[in-house]
Structures are given as C-alpha cells and as structure tokens.
C-alpha cells in the first residue's frame, strides 16, 4: 500500500509522487528539482492532477504514471533517471501559459536563435559551438515560448555526447565552455531548420512563416494537448523572425555561418 506522498507544481502542472517507502520519495525530490531546474514548488498532494507511483515489492520497484505501467525495475537509480525524464516531459506537455518546443536556443545580440530538432540531431553540439563564439546560452533541449512568442531560458547543463559512443552523455556547465546562461527573455531572431549531413554546405533557403510553423509543430510538445494555444503562440513567435532551412556540416563551421548570417540579415 502506497502511503507516502509528495507533490509539486511546475509551470502550472501539479504532480504527485507516492511510494510505500521513504527513500524513493526523498530521491525523487532531488530528481524533480534537477529535471525542472528548481522551477517547482511543493503543494498539497490532494491538488495534484498527475500521479506517479513507485512501489517496492520484494527486491524490485514497480512504477507508473496515471494509468501507464512502467514495469518492474530492481535498480532505483536508473528508474529515477527515467522518472526524471518523464516528469520533465509531463510538465512540458501540460504546462499552462508556456509552450515547450524541442529545440536548442541561444541568444545573440539580444535576439534568440532557435534550432528545433529531435534528440541526436546535433542540437547540443551546435549550441555549444555558438556559446563558444559568444552567444548566450538558453537551452540545449527546450525553447520555452510565452503567449507573446518570447523565448525564455531553460539552461540545464549541456548534455554533451561522447564522440566515440553517442549513448554516453556528460552534463557540462555552460561556464566550462566559457559562456553564460541567459537570465532574461528574448524575441526570436532566427529559426534554423536543418540536419547534420557530412560535407554539407551552408546554403540557407528562407521558408515562409506558415511553412516554418508547420515545421515547428513537429517539435512542439503540447501540440496535441493544447493545440489552439500552441498554434497562436507559434504564430506570435515567428513574427519578425527569419526562418531558414539547410543541411549543415560540422558544428564549428556552422556556428560561424549562423552568426554571420544573422549579423547580415535585417529583422
């Protein structure tokens, strides 16, 4: 019987975690805090809409979220790592007043450069190179748009993959790259769509606002849950922004091209 409960609210999303043991609850507090960059506050568990459970049965832990069963896992550490990522996605999907888009973001001369992309698309590597060139770090995972379309920082440590084994990632503080994390919001200057392709040339083609939004939708986390708000927010986000599409070669050279491009574009 689960009888220990802890709940928090983050970006308007109310989440409860319950367990029949104290240890998972104590550790999940740290995990949630890390996953959401401390942007959470404790609430009364009765106010929560979403419920995780972690139940110790013998030597293993069974777990789940609302009606979904995560299965059994004997290793609490790896289970909590998974639950941390699920907490972040849950908040990103159901956040009120903020639209989470899967993207790397930096700001350059006060304007945001947004690089939408899936995992393994090279966002973090490119963001790291932009930071090394002086851009202000916002995020390597999410662009957080408010209703006006302004981007807010979500500066988690950069999850840099090892070249020899991309499944291994190390958290790198942006200061280790010689950069700084953004503290204020920025309007969007450039949205860049493209994938790494060996030996690709940087040949940007401008895309129309409508087509750009269609591309953004594929990376917009609450699109199915909160379609209308997400669409209006994206529309506001692209106002005044330049949107380009091109494959890219190595991140170091691409970062230079991006900054050169934005410096020579009026918007």
């Amino acid at each position, binding site marked *: 019987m689960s009888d220990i409960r802890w709940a928090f609210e983050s970006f308007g999303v109310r989440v409860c975690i319950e367990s029949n043991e104290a240890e998972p609850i104590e550790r999940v507090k740290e995990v949630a805090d890390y996953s959401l960059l401390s942007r959470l506050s404790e609430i009364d568990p009765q106010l929560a809409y979403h419920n995780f459970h972690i139940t110790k049965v013998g030597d*293993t*832990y*069974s*777990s789940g979220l609302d009606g979904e069963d*995560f*299965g*059994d*896992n004997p*290793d609490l550490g*790896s*289970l909590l*790592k*998974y639950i*941390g*990522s699920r907490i972040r*996605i849950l908040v*990103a*999907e159901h956040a009120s007043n903020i639209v989470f888009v*899967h993207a790397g973001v930096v700001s350059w001369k006060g304007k945001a450069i947004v690089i939408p992309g*899936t*995992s*393994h*698309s090279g966002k973090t590597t490119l963001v790291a190179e932009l930071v090394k060139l002086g851009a202000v770090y916002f995020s390597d*995972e999410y662009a957080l748009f408010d209703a006006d379309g302004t981007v807010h920082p979500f500066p988690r440590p950069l*999850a840099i993959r090892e070249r020899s084994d*991309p*499944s*291994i*990632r190390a958290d790198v503080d942006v200061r280790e790259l010689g950069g700084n994390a953004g503290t204020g919001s920025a309007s969007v200057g450039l949205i860049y769509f493209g994938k790494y392709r060996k030996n690709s040339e940087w040949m940007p083609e401008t895309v*129309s*606002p*409508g*087509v750009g*939004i*269609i*591309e953004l*939708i*594929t*990376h*917009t*986390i609450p*699109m*199915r849950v909160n*379609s*209308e708000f997400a*669409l*209006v927010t994206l*529309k506001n986000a692209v106002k005044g922004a330049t949107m380009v599409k091109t494959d890219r070669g190595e991140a170091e050279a691409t970062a230079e091209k991006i900054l050169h491009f934005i410096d020579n574009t009026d918007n």
Partner: protein
Amino acid sequence: MNNSQKPVARHSGLVVQEMPGEVLVYDMDSNKAHCLNETAAMVWRSCDGNSSVEDIVRSFERNSGTKVSEDLIWLAIDQLSSNGLLAEKVESKFAGQSRREVLKKIGFASVVALPVIASLVAPQSVLAFTSCTCNPGQPVGCTPQVPAGCGSNCSGGGVCV
C-alpha cells in the same frame, strides 16, 4: 463530383490561424497541420456550400483580379478534399491522371500560383521528444518511445542502445 455540386469547407475540429498570404490549419482529429498558400486558402474560403465550382471560379477571379481556369480551382478542391479540409470528400476530377500530368497541364496555363497545401503530422507520442533515456524495467521498451538515433534496447544504465 460534377460542377453543379457545392463543396463545403470543414470547420469543426480545426484550429485556424490566418497569416499574410497563408492560412494555417491544425486538424485536432488527425493531428495534422496544414499550411495553405493564398490560392488554396481563397478556394477554401469560397467553399461555403452555396457556391458551385463555376461560382468559385468567378469569385476567385473577382478577388484576385486574374482569369483562372476551372481546372486550377478543381486542383485546389481536390487537395482540400484529400487533406480532410472539406466537410464531405469530393470525387477527384483528375482521377486516373498523375499529379505531374495535372500540374503540368494547369501550371503552363496559369498566371496565378498553383494551390499548395503543405502538411505534416504532429508526433504521435510526447515520448518522441525524450532523449534516449529509458526504463531498464522494460528492456525492450525503447522501440515505440525513442526518436530516431536511439537504439531499440534499454541498457541497464537506462539508455536506449
């Protein structure tokens, strides 16, 4: 469908945003997003259930100030229908012809932009946005969850490899 029939634009279950020269439509039933260019959008707006194809041609010509062929309007209606943007599907006027043939025929004769509807489906699961983190409790749980680039098996360390 013949020219006497009157296509009706679908409105239910859609989120619509007008933009300069484009219309964005998000279909909450299919979770598909569409971007209609000006030509497609003008035809869509004219599909009011009271106007025949001939009426739509006249309306288009009035609004654009340009002569257009009936085939161009039909091309737009075909695309609107196949993308689920009409209340009822219409039978394609160009059945049996390849899209390339149709575009070639209409494109050469047209001075206005051909109707274009760009469409993409929103990702099926929010889990598609995860990194390659997985739950070792479900060692094969990666397959439906992970984005391209992650493997399909969950390692003991909680990474899809």
